């Protein structure tokens, strides 16, 4: 498994908000070591049985947390992420959506500088089934450990794929929702590289969407021999109309990349079978075992 394991000790930033407290509860129910929460000005309270602190630094000092999950509203979220990085946390999972892209650009680079791994923003988080969950993925469908590593750029589609794979008998080592925003922390390729080094993971399922170049870069990494484990792909948006253009610049940068056809061609060119439906993913995985 990667990113989260039995040593993961989590603080919840924004724990006094409705999403923060609800998902703190769900994580605890799943068995995650949620050791505290942070909401400035609300230190001293206790929520869902864990202590609330005024600052991440204090929370880390008192609980030994090594991971944080951020539920703070978008306009304050960047500040919360910087706080988590400055407190030296190794992993920060940013659930919040609608964070300004310039903010994300800053904290993603700052995290790299300081050695913090960021997952998200705008992501469902990370789960190592039966061991630990740092995210909002529904507990009920994650009850099967196994050899599949899932990387997904889409939130709910992640659950869909995990569910269908578990139903087909394939548990997961870790499921990583890398987030759907234009700028995110670890991306599809970096996550695939982690799975490549993880002994438990025997096969990688990469769930993409139209737009961006994550799948194209994944194909390249496979062709370059950086990823040798079998990969099965799925890309949502085969029938979607083209989205808003980012000016001529967008067209010049992408040069046709980002389309469904382009992504499928790239992946197939790297020997990655691409399923047409989520259910077909399970079929393609089965063929490889």
């Amino acid at each position: 498994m990667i990113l989260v394991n039995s040593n993961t000790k989590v603080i919840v930033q924004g724990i006094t908000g409705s999403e923060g407290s609800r998902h703190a509860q769900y994580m605890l129910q799943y068995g995650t070591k949620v050791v505290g929460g942070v909401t400035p000005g609300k230190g001293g309270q206790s929520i869902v049985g864990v202590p609330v602190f005024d600052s991440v630094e204090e929370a880390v000092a008192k609980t030994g947390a090594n991971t944080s999950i951020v539920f703070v509203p978008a306009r304050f979220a960047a500040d919360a992420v910087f706080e988590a990085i400055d407190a030296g946390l190794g992993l920060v999972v940013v659930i919040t959506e609608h964070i300004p892209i310039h903010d994300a650009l800053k904290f993603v680079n700052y995290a790299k500088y300081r050695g913090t791994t960021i997952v998200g923003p705008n992501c469902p988080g990370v789960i190592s089934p039966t061991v630990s969950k740092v995210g909002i993925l529904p507990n009920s469908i994650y009850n099967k450990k196994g050899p599949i590593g899932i990387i997904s750029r889409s939130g709910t589609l992640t659950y869909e794929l995990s569910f269908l794979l578990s139903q087909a008998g394939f548990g997961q080592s870790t499921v990583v929702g890398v987030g759907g925003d234009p700028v995110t922390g670890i991306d599809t390729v970096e996550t695939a590289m982690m799975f490549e080094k993880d002994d438990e993971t025997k096969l990688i399922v990469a769930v993409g969407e139209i737009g961006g170049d994550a799948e194209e870069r994944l194909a390249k990494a496979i062709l370059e021999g950086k990823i040798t484990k079998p990969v099965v792909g799925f890309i949502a948006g085969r029938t979607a109309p083209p989205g808003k253009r980012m000016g001529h610049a967008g067209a010049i940068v992408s040069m046709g990349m980002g389309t469904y056809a382009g992504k499928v061609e790239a992946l197939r060119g790297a020997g990655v079978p691409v399923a047409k439906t989520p259910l077909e993913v399970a079929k393609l995985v089965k063929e490889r075992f």
Partner: protein
Amino acid sequence: MRLLEYKGKDLLYKYGVEKPRGMVISSPDQIGQGLKYPVFVKAQVPFAGRAKMGLVKRANNVDEARAVARDYLGKVIQDFPIRKVLLEEGSPIKKEYYISMTVDRTNERYLILASPEGGIDIEEVAKEHPEKIFRGGFHPFAGLRDYLVNELIKFMGIQGTQARDFAKVVYAMYQVMMDYDAELVEINPLALTEDGKFIAIDVKIMVDDNALFRHGDINVEEEGDLTREELEARAAGFHYVELPGDIGIIGNGAGLTMATMDLVKEYGGEPADFLDIGGGASRDIVKSALTLLLKDARIRAVLINIFGGITRGDEVAYGVTEAIREVGVSKPIFIRLKGTNEEEGRKILAPLNIKIYDTAEEAVQDLMKSIRGDGK
């Protein structure tokens, strides 16, 4: 959000980038003397290909300008009602450049794209002559640095005092990018006039929707590119795109919603919409979304595909119940419900006698059967 041309020009002008002499009007009566004719009358719309759509015209005098403006201001193009028209004097252009600044998502930094061959065919230039496109990245921790601007100037073949003036344009674009949370600042063409000045002939600025809270001086309705439909969806709290088919689709999350559309197509159906209720939708949002589709006469059946994470099955179920209570069940509804509070949702939906599916495939298969059964 894409700013209308005139607003983009105003922002850049504030930072020192010249624009043609002109005026913005919202009524033909506002056109008086003061401009030197002929002028270009440009409908302020937030999409490309304006010239080819006849939305830029030349006017030789006030009367002609008023006539064109009157024509434009009545129009709704691509769901966008034209509310502003820009009148501009012509400029004696010697050469046209292309330049833009944007976010390089892959490398997590900023990117300058530019070409000494600007104008409407810039994408062709990029395709046919990639060597004529300058690509220069810079890191947010370094900021825009002179050395990169110098390389750009050299590439563009600009010399002497014009090099200094061009550098000012580039730094102005950078400041707008930073100060206004822009995702794109594009000047095309940036014209060099006969008398050696740089003028922004057309400007496209896209401001990050998520950062609008920091920019109170941007008026979303007046200056933005939102269509009526988008303004309504924004108010309702979901993301909606109309499509040509007859099967209504509701999903939570863009990926799952798109995958649901793909699945419908795979089984031979035609989606009538893309409707994503987003993450953690309230019952009100679900209710508005379903109501919209139930009232749409084109739609023969509705497929709701929910896999709850932050979205809760009970909220979805309440929203569905309320919509049906209000509008009535005019067409078959197929619901797939999994994830957070799935059980609670099923219980709430039980009185409606709608079958709740465990997988999307089963739901789509039954939906297609029902359509074929009564349609074919």
